[in-house]
């Protein structure tokens, strides 16, 4: 039907089916800023439009409803290329991270400021109340709106000056517009879904209805015969290659335990078949015609069930090793079920799949038995964490196409080079035949570290030659992408009466789900990011990771550290309580300090030998001092409600900055004709601000302006290799690689300038703006460029550099909170949250703060309410944003402040260290400690739901079934 509608000021006649979602209609009309995060539930707001001036979800409108109406999208905001006041305010306030929800937020701001010239905090919250942002933690939105309000009246209004660092530097440590900000606030073509050609085929997946089953028979003939169906894939016609989807450096410490499609199905939603068709509707209809007969097996859903004698075995497979096979392997493999296929370990990580054990490791320093014997107080506690999902608003998505003889993959990935390596191996083609282009990523959070759909679309395109778009539904994102490993962690601490720790023991049992992606390294990280925070001579850890039939676990921001930190830090709180000691005093007595050598790290490598590391910089002292003052530690807070108790808590935290000895990054810088630069970086910005960071580092080093460095990133054809964005590696590895390339360019600039001047290099130096000084006359970069590219020159100046290291740069922090616990409802309100973190020199201060706010709010979520709920058959009962419960703007603490505590790390670029993942480690233990302070109960299982709290308080009886 024809639908008359005015869009962004232009009267249009749209052709649409009456029941088509308006979101889809607008996208078809090339209005790309309307996004999809919830598949039409109306819970994410990414598809927000202004309908007659009011914000509405365009996914909840059908085309016929907009007849005669007026629609505005973010495309109307900028006039020509001049950004609106609201758009610039968002960029300058650091609230544009991945950008996927940004158009919705901008429109909500426009509507809000039309209603209220100077809105209150409550009015801002109300305006954004229906829009999910998983990156920013919302807090900086208030300043963005305030700035927008001022700029609407006076476009020259400056942003409120925030923290600045390093007076000796021009650009690093100062605010600077995010380099992709303008693109994202205008809703430009940016994400994978925007790249798909109109004739792209659609890939849809038939997921297993059973958590544990064999496919006895599968008949795809009716589906394959449907007009418009291009390909049907099952275990019978996919590559017979076993692999792991983890985007880790090769050789991976994760077993190759899956095929593209298996005959055995190991979780609800596991791949049964895929249909590639000329439309999404045809693909869905064809899936319904696939007939499958299953042999249903008993599901295994917990580590206890997996470890129990006689438990059903998930991988009753033939186990193989590339190196280090145990001598009795043949004996162990006897009786394997051929339907279960293979499990290949690159090297031993002490797994035994026939006992559902994916990996294990133990180690330590000193003598824990002696340490416990010396202790005057010993506590042993077990903590449990539930399964949570990172819910990037953009689900996993990939677009694949053929160009000549090559496969092009447009990916929303954190690991373009790992995608290329893994996909080319599965397809049986060489890496030079595959190009991976990392598009803007609508939130990664670790889930996009793995190759969870790219290989299927790649195979379909490689086989058929057709372009293929494959996008997870929100439900698939929950059940078939990656989640935080559920864990049970037992912590034993021994201490002297004065609080000095004499022994620490940590026993981690992790649930990896059906496949072993990150099965060793995530639970090891639980230990390696929690134990070294505390000084103790006798430390032991024991890690066992089990296969089960829950949705797959893997990487999620923090990578095991949030679970480990929760257990160890809360155990510290319990120990302090047992000692009758103030928790802050206990932490101060036992905490790590700058200059110390962390011996425990010798045995906490990623499945390989490692080395002890020195603490090269540590801001824990000032963080604790400032936090103590902010929260008014020790001052009791009274409540005027007899049901409400108020308490305070604290946790100290750490992370790493990439993986020394394992990670590597590369970059190159080219001098252009007018003296500006083109930077090629392999680094993968998934919204974090890494692109801005590398540009700032290069501009700082080369004494040029931010606008004089342009950037191409993360394209395997164009930019040099980078392991990818994970393990908090961006600043340290990709940043140092870019800085090294700039330093090399500096060397070349000085050499050529000296040649032009006929003078020695010594005494010459780069100076702002873009000039070499110190000689008989200044030489501009433009002159150098003309000189080098002339017919008699030495050729364009291009510098390439890499960064590898054996030195670590640990970020540290202290998180403080104040909570109000309603002992009648069980509800917990976070009244105050202060996150104080040392990320060395904050390269992008406002973006670093945004990373901290976002990390904290995500983990307030899993501390208080986020949880994937599985039934007894392994089906996720809340695989949607509304029922899963993702923190929204009304979930913010009443007072929420992120504070950067400056240190200068000797190895980080201009002293910088990582900032994001560490922010996920404090909420659970700090909130749990505060709940105890308020009520006297220890919450040893996250989330600290009202129901659990009431049970602990004895206000309701024992569990009577869920």
């Amino acid at each position, binding site marked *: 039907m024809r639908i008359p509608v005015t869009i962004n000021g232009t009267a249009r006649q749209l052709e649409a089916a009456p029941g088509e979602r308006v979101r889809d209609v607008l996208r078809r009309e090339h209005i790309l800023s309307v996004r999809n995060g919830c598949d039409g539930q109306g819970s994410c707001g990414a598809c927000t439009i202004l309908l007659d001036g*009011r914000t509405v979800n365009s996914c*909840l409108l059908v085309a016929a409803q907009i007849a005669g109406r007026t629609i505005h999208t973010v495309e109307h905001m900028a006039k020509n290329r001049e950004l609106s006041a609201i758009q610039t305010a968002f960029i300058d306030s650091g609230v544009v991270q991945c950008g996927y929800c940004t158009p919705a937020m901008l429109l909500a701001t426009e509507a809000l400021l039309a209603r209220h010239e100077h809105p209150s905090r409550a009015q801002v919250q109300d305006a954004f109340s229906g829009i999910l942002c998983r990156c920013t933690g919302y807090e900086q939105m208030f300043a963005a709106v305030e700035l927008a309000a001022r700029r609407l009246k006076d476009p020259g209004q400056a942003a409120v000056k925030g923290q600045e660092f390093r007076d000796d530097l021009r650009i690093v440590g100062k605010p600077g517009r995010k380099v992709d900000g303008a693109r994202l606030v205008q809703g430009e073509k940016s994400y994978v879904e925007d790249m798909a050609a109109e004739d792209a085929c659609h890939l849809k997946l038939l997921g297993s209805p059973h958590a544990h089953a064999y496919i006895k028979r599968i008949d795809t003939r009716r589906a394959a015969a449907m007009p418009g169906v291009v390909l049907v894939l099952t275990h019978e016609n996919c590559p017979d290659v076993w692999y792991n989807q983890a985007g880790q450096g090769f050789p991976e410490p994760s077993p190759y335990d899956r095929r593209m499609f298996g005959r055995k199905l190991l979780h609800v939603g596991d791949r049964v078949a895929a249909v590639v068709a000329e439309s999404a509707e045809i693909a869905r209809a064809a899936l319904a015609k696939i007939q499958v007969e299953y042999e249903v097996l008993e599901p295994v859903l917990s580590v206890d069930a997996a470890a129990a004698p006689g438990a059903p075995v998930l991988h009753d497979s033939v186990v193989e090793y590339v190196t280090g096979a145990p001598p009795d392997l043949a004996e162990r493999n006897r009786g394997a079920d051929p339907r279960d296929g293979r499990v290949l370990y690159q090297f031993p990580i002490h797994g035994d799949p026939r006992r559902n054990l994916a990996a294990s490791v133990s180690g330590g320093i000193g003598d824990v038995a002696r340490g416990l014997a010396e202790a005057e107080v010993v506590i042993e506690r077990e903590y449990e964490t539930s399964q949570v999902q990172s819910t990037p608003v953009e689900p996993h998505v990939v677009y694949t196409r053929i160009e000549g003889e090559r496969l092009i993959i447009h990916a929303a990935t954190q690991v373009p080079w790992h995608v290329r390596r893994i996909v080319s191996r599965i397809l049986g083609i060489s890496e030079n035949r595959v190009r991976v282009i990392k598009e803007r990523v609508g939130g990664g959070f670790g889930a996009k570290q793995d190759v969870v759909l790219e290989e299927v679309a790649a195979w379909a395109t490689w086989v058929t030659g057709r372009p293929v778009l494959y996008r997870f539904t929100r439900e698939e994102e929950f059940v078939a992408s990656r989640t935080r490993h559920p864990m049970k962690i037992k912590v034993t601490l021994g201490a002297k009466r004065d609080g000095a720790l004499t022994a620490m023991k940590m026993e981690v049992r992790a649930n990896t789900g059906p496949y072993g992606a990150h099965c060793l390294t995530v639970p090891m990280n639980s230990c390696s990011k929690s134990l070294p925070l505390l000084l103790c001579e006798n430390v032991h850890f024991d890690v066992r990771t089990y296969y089960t039939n829950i949705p797959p676990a893997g990487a999620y921001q923090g990578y095991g550290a949030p679970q480990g930190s929760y257990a160890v830090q809360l155990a510290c709180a319990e120990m302090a309580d047992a000692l009758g000691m103030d928790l802050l005093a206990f932490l101060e007595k036992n905490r790590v300090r700058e200059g110390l050598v962390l011996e425990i790290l010798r045995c906490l490598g990623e499945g390989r030998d490692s080395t002890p590391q020195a603490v090269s910089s540590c801001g824990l002292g000032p963080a604790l001092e400032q936090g103590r003052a902010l929260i008014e530690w020790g001052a009791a807070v009274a409540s005027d409600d007899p049901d409400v108790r108020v308490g305070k808590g604290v946790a100290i935290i750490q992370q790493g900055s990439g993986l020394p000895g394992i990670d590597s990054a590369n970059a190159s810088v080219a001098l252009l004709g007018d003296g500006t630069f083109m930077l090629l970086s392999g680094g993968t910005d998934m919204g974090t601000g890494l692109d801005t960071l590398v540009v700032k580092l290069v501009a700082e080093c080369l004494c040029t302006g931010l606008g004089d460095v342009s950037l191409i990133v993360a394209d395997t054809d164009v930019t040099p290799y980078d392991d990818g964005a994970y393990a908090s590696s961006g600043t340290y590895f990709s940043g140092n690689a870019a800085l090294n390339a700039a330093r090399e360019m500096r060397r070349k600039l000085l050499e050529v300038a000296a040649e032009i001047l006929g003078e020695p290099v010594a005494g010459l130096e780069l100076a702002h703006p873009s000039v070499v000084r110190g000689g008989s006359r200044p030489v501009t970069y433009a002159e150098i460029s003309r000189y080098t590219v002339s017919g008699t020159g030495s050729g364009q100046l291009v510098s390439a550099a890499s960064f590898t290291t054996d030195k670590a740069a640990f970020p540290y922090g202290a998180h403080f909170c104040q909570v109000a616990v309603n002992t009648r409802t069980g509800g917990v309100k976070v009244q105050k949250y202060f996150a104080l973190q040392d990320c060395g020199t904050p390269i992008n201060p406002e973006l670093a703060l945004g990373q901290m706010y976002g990390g904290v709010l995500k983990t307030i979520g899993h501390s*208080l309410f986020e949880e994937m709920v599985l039934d007894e058959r392994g089906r996720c009962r809340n695989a949607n944003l509304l029922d899963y419960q993702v923190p*929204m703007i*009304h979930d913010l603490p009443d007072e929420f402040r992120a504070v950067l505590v400056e240190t200068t790390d000797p190895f980080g670029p201009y002293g910088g260290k990582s900032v994001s993942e560490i922010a996920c480690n404090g909420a659970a233990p700090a909130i749990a400690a505060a709940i105890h302070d308020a009520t006297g109960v220890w919450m040893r299982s996250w989330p600290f739901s*009202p129901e659990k709290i009431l049970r602990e308080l004895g206000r309701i009886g024992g569990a009577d079934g*869920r």
Partner: protein
Amino acid sequence: MIEHFHRPVTVRAALGLKRRFTTRAVFLAGGTFVNSNAFPLAPEHCISLAGLKLDRISRSRGGVAIGALCTLQQLIDDRKVPAPLRVAALQVVSRNVRNMATLGGHVASRLPNSDLVPTLVALGAKLALAGSARKVPVLDYVANARAGLITRILVPASGPGRVTACAHHRASANARSLVSAAVSLNPDRGRVRRPVIALGGVGGHVVRLTAVEKRLDGKPLPATDELQALVSRAVRPASDHVASAAFRRHQAGVVVARAFDAARGRKAGPS
């Protein structure tokens, strides 16, 4: 997938279309349920109510008549709407949704844990249904699955001294309410007169706790613990993947007690 979109401009025409296409057709108000991925039906015909001019709010001596197509945000923004209903409408937290969802559509959805229906029940609201002169109490409509197109929601004027308030329990800001309650009463020198207690989230539809109302009528309001226990004993929710029956029972008591507190002007702490 909707194949035919009808835009009747009279209620009579709308009813005619529904009679003609019966189960193949669905009425469309704001669309937050019918157009969502949670809607269980796949109707061929969609009968839009947008042209029926049911988006007005008018006050008379008898109370307020709210057109069924008034959005929840419209209720909040219009001071003619009784304050307790405006407060209840804010419990639908997403402004985007409130800008679309209509009061008539919300009632017709018969959500067991509705944020607004308990307040409508407590206020004694009735529904005007198309083609019928009789006004149907809201509870009768939702509890007995009454058919009929809602055209107006009639909220009677509260008598002198009558107070009404709601309370809800949800685990996070935008979550669905686990339980929702509204109470209405006449405080009378420490006593409760003619209390109404409506509760959602403890069964298949919103219920009225008439036995508890009788126990309370004419007496001093019991202490919070006693009132809470009284309500908890009066409900029989089932356990599900969201909460245990024990927790729902407990929270049912809590929200009713909190609603009484709010109605009597006592401040409640963080929920």
